[in-house]
């Protein structure tokens, strides 16, 4: 279980998100909607624990443990994994090296070749990670690394952005694999939190809880399919208006 309580996060001294509360039960996948600049990525980065994202208030706990003070790698080893939207190129470090780093410490892991075949990235293993990768290749490479890592909580930042229609089905499949959507709910141990702009990903991932973020906080919680329908029809402005209407005046 992931439990976020009254979380506020600042980046370079500027408050970006505030008072976030969220609980993801084991086996559940939740979806984050929201306009650009709402603070969705900041929330993911803070859960992953990047030092630039400073928790100014509240706490994050994972599997019953307060992880607010843990470093990125400690959180990764505890079972949190993240796909980067714009991962850096690391010259000289091959995709193979990255995947094998992700496999480290896992005896039951698939072989690197098998994972590459699943992500259709066989020809990329000896290439420097992310160097000259297309948008779709980056997404697949991120998911391949996560499949090697097998995190219990998977954080996905717009996994469908910049991906063409052929690739999106494959990406959907990889996500389902990561989130164990093909096994019965009772047996699932994996959780997911996915940022999506377009909602396309809902066609592939079975998520029951959605949030709309605006102005650095969660404005609305509900069924993600319903939310998406409203957003598509009326845009985020309607969400914001609705949210602002519900804020007591003293705030």
């Amino acid at each position, binding site marked *: 279980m992931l439990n976020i309580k009254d979380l506020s996060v600042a980046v370079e001294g500027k408050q970006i998100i505030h008072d976030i509360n969220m609980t993801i039960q084991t086996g559940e996948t939740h979806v984050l909607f929201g306009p650009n600049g709402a603070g969705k990525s900041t929330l993911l980065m803070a859960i*992953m624990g*990047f*030092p630039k994202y400073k928790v100014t208030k509240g706490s994050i706990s994972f599997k019953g443990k307060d992880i607010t003070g843990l*470093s*990125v*790698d400690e959180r*990764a*080893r505890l079972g949190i*994994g*993240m796909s*980067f939207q714009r*991962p*850096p190129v*690391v*010259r*000289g*470090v*091959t995709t193979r*090296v*990255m995947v094998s*780093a*992700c496999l*480290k*410490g896992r005896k039951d892991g698939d072989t690197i070749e098998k994972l590459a075949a699943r992500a259709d990235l066989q020809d990329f293993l000896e290439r*420097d990670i992310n160097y000259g990768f297309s948008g779709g290749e980056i997404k697949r490479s991120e998911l391949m*690394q996560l499949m090697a*890592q097998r995190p219990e909580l998977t954080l996905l930042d717009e996994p469908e952005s910049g991906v063409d229609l052929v690739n999106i089905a494959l990406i959907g499949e990889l996500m389902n694999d990561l989130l164990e959507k093909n096994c019965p709910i009772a047996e699932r141990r994996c959780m997911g939190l996915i940022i999506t702009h377009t909602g396309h990903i809902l066609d592939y991932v079975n998520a029951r809880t959605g949030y709309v973020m605006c102005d650095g906080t969660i404005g609305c919680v509900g069924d993600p399919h319903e939310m998406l329908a409203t957003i598509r029809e009326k845009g985020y402005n309607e969400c914001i208006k609705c949210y602002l209407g519900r804020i007591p005046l003293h705030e």
Partner: protein
Amino acid sequence: MSKIKTSRTYDDKAKAALNKAAAYGEDINLDNYVNPAEKLPYQEDPSKLAAKTKKDMLGAGIILDDPGLRSGTYLQMDSTPVHFSARQEGIEVMALSQAIEKHDWLTDYLWKAVPIDSDKYTANVELSDNDGYFIRALAGHKTVYPVQACLYMAQAKAVQNVHNIIIAEEGSELHIITGCATASPNEPGLHIGVSEFFIKKGAKVTFTMIHNWNPEIAVRPRTVTIVEEGGLFLSNYVLMKPVHSLQMYPTARCEGKGATVRYNSILTAGKGTNLDVGSRVLLNAENARTEVISRAITTGGNIVARGYIEGNAKDVKGHLECRGLILGEKGIIHAIPELKGDLAGIDLSHEAAVGKIAEEEVEYLMARGLTRDEATAAIVRGFLRVDIEGLPPMLSAELQKAVAASEKDLM
């Protein structure tokens, strides 16, 4: 090579340059070093050398216990050739002094590529007791395994004067691995190595250097390579161990159409190490190509990383890449890439970058579960990974091994 007759003009030219400081690097007072006193005995079977000597040499990539892995071996201690042998037909490996007695045409090659009056160091080699290796591949012959050469500094506070000649005749292929090593872990010494390479039409030479000096040694190599039509010269320089002062600016001259030169250098400098190292390529013939790549890491030492490409003929192409990484608080990397062209239609480019490891990259790897140290090590390892096109897999593996062996010291 006192017995070698050099012309009067050589002698005069050398004498005139005896006080000529080099263009770059710290000026070394030659009087601080003695000439090696004794001639060392020749060793028929190099595997019988002292265990410690063999270990020092192995640190520089020289294998003496398994001669099957090499096409030939040349070992020199101070100024004495102590062993040379070739194991493959069409390959000659011997002391230069002996080669000159065998081939009377060879004197034409002496100081043909490297000007004798380049500086006091070249002059000193000519005017002192010197020797070096002569490695030659006869026309059309190709080495299966590399030829290895080791220049070993046995006596402390001495100067080692070396003069090497390498000739790849037409259509031949020669792979050479050379390593320098010192007996003492901390006594000063001066190594001066003149190397002249002649790569004839369609020939290919790969030259891989792995060094293992000590923190008090000064080194002044002077190397020029002449590449004829369709020839290829591939030079790989690896310095992962400490040295006091190293200054070199090897030059390759592409004199024939389509001649190709690649320089790869991996340099590391800890505290007390001063490197001024560059590679210079003159593209003097149509369609000549070059790629000059250097990777420099300082953990407290000073590195000047130079590079120079000059395009003097039609349709030449050259690229210079200088990347420096500063690990730790101190240490300087000064990258000086230079390009010169005087014709339309030439294509020269360079990229240079000096900095610390990007935090974003470290965090990316940490997000996959690596600790900060593991992530940093992976990035440094990647930085040092230079894929060398055209290098036989065996040499490539030895190069990676030499780099990997020293990685830990960097961290």
